[in-house]
């Protein structure tokens, strides 16, 4: 009964207290200690703190069964309460802002393009170049059929030959070749072909040039060179591969035989033919013919007999020598002519010119000769070179000089016989050399080579000597006289300087730049010395005079005042300026006197005063100046109102200074003052559009960017509503957790 009553009473109290919204907190209840303690009546009064879950578990500390519960409780405690989700507008705003920043960043990629287009000198629209739309011939053909009999016939032919008619217009082979070769490969191949062709053409040109050379001697030398080369190769081959060498030998033998067979000593040559005609009537001619035939026989016979016995060799040698004789004679003559024209000319009056002309050509020669001298016997190749060079030199000489005419007949004396014989003899010699030992070969080579050499060397050395002599002389005459003395005196002064080896080296041009520098240095030093020495003397002169006039203090003061008002002559300056302006604005008199008109004239004579007075037109007095009564003002009266109407008053925008503007105005752009090209360049319009051409908006692909069209739809389709719902879901989830 009581319990019920108490409880009801309590309930009532609670209900009443809960009615009042503001004081929802329960008032601390003070009650007597009683036996009955209500389990619902737990309060955290007094401490004023919230009831924490952990407090409830305090009494069950000891029991281990509730440990898991406790842990869970801790976990719950550690988690923070989830913040309230933002309202929808706020979320949208954030999304918008993020999207805006993103797109702004994306758009920034256009900055350089836009800037470039804005600053471009000229823009031609449409920006992208249109490719001319030419239909390929296959398409044109496909829509066309053969109708007339002629056409049909042609098509039949084409079909028979497996020529393609329609798309694509290529034979299978062509197609394969097209597929086979890439562009780069084709380019490389073409380049290779071009190179080969070029080389071929060079070679051909060279061959032609060589072929054109009429000189027998040249050809002889070339042949000899070739033979020698072959010989060398053969020797090498013999060392390396004897079997192959034998074969090679046989070949050489055969070649020799062929040469023999085709000899001109038979009646096939021009000379022989003419003689054959004459032989009927002329006894001498007949004899000559017979002699020749006999010679031929001899030669062939000698061939038939194998050249193994020493006797035969000796015979051949003699023969060779015999044959060689005319050549040698020729050579001697030529040699006498070759360098000699120079010598001859030197004998004549115009020696200097010839010498100057010759010098550059002759200079390289002596060196070569020296080389040949030292190595000539050991190396037969060098000898060849000499011959060749000599030959070329002579050719050039012949071209240039008239005197070479004398040399020409000498060259023409060489007959065909001799040349052919020479070739043969060379071959023979070479073949012999194969069989002989090295020593004998050397001897022969020397016997052949040295004869011309020696003869040639003589003039060469003669040339060398004057040149060698001249050089030092020149150096001495020109600059030594001046510099030697100076250098010597320098050396005397500067003892510490290391003395050079000899006077010769001092004279060399390497030293020369040093000398003037030193000279300059000395001069500089001298000047300084002068200054330093003079300045104190000046001071010493000046100071006493001032001291005599004034005291030091006074002087200082005056100086200070002067310094303070140094440029302070403003008033006088202004007055002067005004006077000048007035003078300038005054109308000038016109003097029309003509000196020497009606009286004597000339240097130092002046027209008489009377005449001057007569012809002087006095300018009328202008209107009074506006600043006549204003002493402090200068009014410029030059300004013309009429011209002012045509003048720009304010500096236009892009210009920062008036002279920039003036300069742009002063440079004319018309074709009257400019060349056509410059005129065109100056008058290019900034924007060019073509009528009838559609100008499309700029595309990312054209400028080289990847277009962002991929993201287009995704961005558009991204539904903001859906996003927000998703976001909300997320929020909900988090709240549930």
């Amino acid at each position: 009964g009581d319990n019920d009553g108490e409880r009801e009473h309590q309930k009532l109290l609670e209900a009443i207290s809960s009615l009042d919204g503001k004081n929802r907190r329960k008032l601390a209840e003070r009650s007597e200690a009683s036996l009955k303690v209500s389990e619902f009546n737990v309060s955290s009064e007094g401490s004023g703190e919230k009831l924490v879950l952990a407090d409830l578990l305090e009494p069950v500390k000891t029991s281990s069964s509730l440990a898991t519960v406790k842990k869970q409780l801790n976990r719950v405690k550690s988690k923070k309460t989830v913040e309230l989700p933002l309202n929808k507008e706020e979320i949208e705003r954030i999304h918008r802002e993020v999207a805006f920043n993103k797109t702004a960043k994306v758009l920034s990629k256009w900055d350089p393009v836009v800037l470039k287009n804005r600053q471009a000198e000229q823009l031609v629209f449409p920006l992208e170049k249109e490719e001319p739309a030419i239909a390929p011939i296959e398409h044109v053909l496909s829509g066309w059929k053969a109708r007339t009999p002629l056409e049909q016939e042609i098509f039949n032919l084409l079909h028979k030959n497996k020529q393609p008619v329609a798309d694509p217009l290529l034979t299978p082979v062509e197609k394969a070749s097209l597929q086979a070769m890439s562009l780069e490969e084709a380019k490389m191949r073409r380049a290779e072909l071009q190179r080969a062709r070029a080389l071929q053409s060079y070679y051909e040109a060279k061959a032609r040039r060589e072929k054109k050379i009429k000189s027998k001697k040249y050809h002889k030398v070339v042949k000899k060179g070739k033979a020698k080369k072959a010989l060398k190769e053969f020797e090498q081959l013999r060392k390396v591969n004897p079997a192959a060498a034998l074969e090679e030998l046989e070949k050489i033998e055969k070649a020799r035989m062929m040469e023999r067979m085709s000899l001109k000593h038979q009646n096939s040559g021009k000379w022989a033919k003419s003689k054959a005609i004459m032989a009927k009537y002329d006894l001498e001619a007949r004899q000559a013919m017979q002699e020749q035939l006999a010679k031929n026989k001899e030669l062939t016979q000698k061939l038939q007999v194998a050249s193994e016995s020493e006797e035969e060799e000796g015979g051949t040698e003699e023969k060779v020598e015999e044959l060689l004789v005319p050549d040698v004679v020729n050579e001697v003559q030529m040699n006498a002519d070759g360098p000699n024209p120079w010598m001859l000319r030197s004998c004549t009056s115009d020696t200097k010119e010839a010498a100057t002309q010759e010098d550059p050509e002759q200079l390289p020669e002596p060196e070569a000769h020296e080389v040949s001298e030292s190595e000539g016997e050991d190396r037969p190749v060098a000898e060849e070179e000499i011959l060749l060079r000599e030959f070329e030199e002579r050719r050039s000489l012949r071209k240039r000089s008239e005197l070479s005419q004398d040399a020409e007949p000498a060259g023409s004396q060489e007959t065909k016989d001799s040349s052919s014989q020479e070739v043969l003899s060379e071959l023979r010699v070479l073949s012999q050399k194969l069989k002989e030992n090295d020593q004998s070969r050397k001897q022969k080579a020397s016997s052949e080579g040295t004869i011309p050499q020696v003869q040639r060397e003589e003039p060469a050395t003669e040339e060398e000597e004057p040149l060698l002599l001249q050089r030092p002389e020149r150096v001495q005459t020109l600059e030594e006289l001046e510099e030697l003395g100076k250098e010597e005196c320098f050396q005397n002064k500067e003892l510490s300087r290391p003395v050079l080896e000899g006077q010769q080296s001092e004279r060399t041009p390497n030293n020369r730049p040093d000398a003037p520098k030193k000279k300059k240095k000395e001069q500089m030093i001298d000047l300084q010395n002068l200054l330093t020495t003079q300045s104190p003397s000046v001071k010493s002169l000046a100071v006493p005079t001032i001291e005599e006039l004034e005291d030091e203090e006074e002087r200082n003061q005056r100086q200070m005042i002067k310094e303070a008002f140094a440029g302070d002559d403003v008033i006088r300056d202004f007055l002067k300026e005004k006077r000048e302006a007035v003078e300038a604005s005054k109308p000038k008199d016109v003097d029309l006197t003509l000196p020497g008109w009606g009286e004597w004239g000339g240097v130092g004579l002046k027209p008489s005063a009377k005449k001057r007075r007569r012809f002087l037109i006095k300018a009328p007095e202008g209107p009074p100046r506006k600043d006549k009564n204003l002493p402090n003002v200068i009014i410029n009266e030059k300004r013309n109102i009429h011209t002012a109407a045509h003048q720009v008053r304010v500096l236009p925008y892009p210009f920062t200074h008036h002279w920039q503007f003036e300069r742009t105005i002063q440079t004319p752009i018309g074709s009257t003052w400019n060349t056509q090209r410059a005129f065109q360049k100056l008058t290019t319009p900034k924007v060019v559009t073509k009528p009838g051409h559609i100008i499309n908006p700029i595309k990312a692909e054209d400028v080289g960017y990847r277009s962002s069209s991929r993201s287009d739809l995704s961005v558009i389709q991204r539904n903001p509503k859906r996003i927000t719902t998703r976001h909300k879901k997320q929020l909900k989830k988090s709240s549930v957790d």
Partner: protein
Amino acid sequence: MKVKMLSRNPDNYVRETKLDLQRVPRNYDPTLHPFEVPREYVRALNATKLERVFTKPFLASLDGHRDGVNCLAKHPKNLATILSGACDGEVRIWNLTQRNCIRTIQAHEGFVRGICTRFCGTSFFTVGDDKTVKQWKMDGPGYGEEEEPLHTILGKTVYTGIDHHWKEAVFATCGQQVDIWDEQRTNPICSMTWGFDSISSVKFNPVETFLLGSCASDRNIVLYDMRTNTICWNPMEAFIFTAANEDYNLYTFDMRALDTPVMVHMDHVSAVLDVDYSPTGKEFVSASFDKSIRIFPVDKSRSREVYHTKRMQHVICVKWTSDSKYIMCGSDEMNIRLWKANASEKLGVLTSREKAAKDYNQKLKEKFQHYPHIKRIARHRHLPKSIYSQIQEQRIMKEARRRKEVNRIKHSKPGSVPIVSEKKKHIVAVVK
């Protein structure tokens, strides 16, 4: 006896063919050609005068509509074709070279609010007051067929504008919200709203095609003035667009920095209703309620040209043709007018000498443009009396405002009255 003779090599003065130019040997010694500047000045003056003399921009008027022309669209692939929608729901397709109407469609009941062509030029879309979006074929129906739209979408609200994507089969409409549509579906892919103002115009960016600008609210761009009538994107500069505003001005913005316009273009004396960029991106044309259209260079705040005719009423829509040579405008009094973009330009093919002379004159005008005489002549335009008087009036108002501002600054504590630049003055707020 020695006879001195002149001998000339005919190669130096005889042309190879008749078509070659005559060789004129010239001496460019400046002493032989004095007075460069005065001579060029006179030439420039003459060029400017001649330009004014030859200024005849008006080319043709296309009449046939029975109500005011409300919207214009140009064919993306064909320069000679344009489309126009009128206030009575009629759509007409015109041929500019023949200057006649090719086709007439009664597309909607009530206004044709917007018209746009598909990027491929095969079809076009219209929206009208009858809450429908219709897609039409560009070619007319065959003989005996009825004029029917390809698709018709019935909407819930009135659409006020439409624009087609530049690359894909997507278009956008605006009205109470901006809707993005797939061509194949009858429901929008997504609709976007911001606030509760209705949206008057929507435009896709031609370069960065995913960008969409609308005049009231938009996903990407925040607009400043809810009274803006329309915007147009620069076709060469992806982030630049120009907005035509009700406060008589046009504003060019860089969409990355919206708090200050790049340029404020002011010359109109009434609300600006439409704007369109030249395909070169260097100029744009604006149509205004003051019965005139003006051409502005993008980087100048003043217009370089104003076009008007006696009969042209409030200009509602304007378009610049794709070859940047002509301008079309549709106006209240049912006519579409064709203008030259460059008023004094000679039409047709020019010979090379004509071209050279033109370029030279142009350069001269440019060079001497700051000289007062030339400036005066070049700037002189005849204006209808209404516009002229309104300009005067507004000048007075503006001067008064400026004076007041100056006085306020003068008579208050220095620094307390901030000096706001003309550019910033017009921006109400930037809403994120």
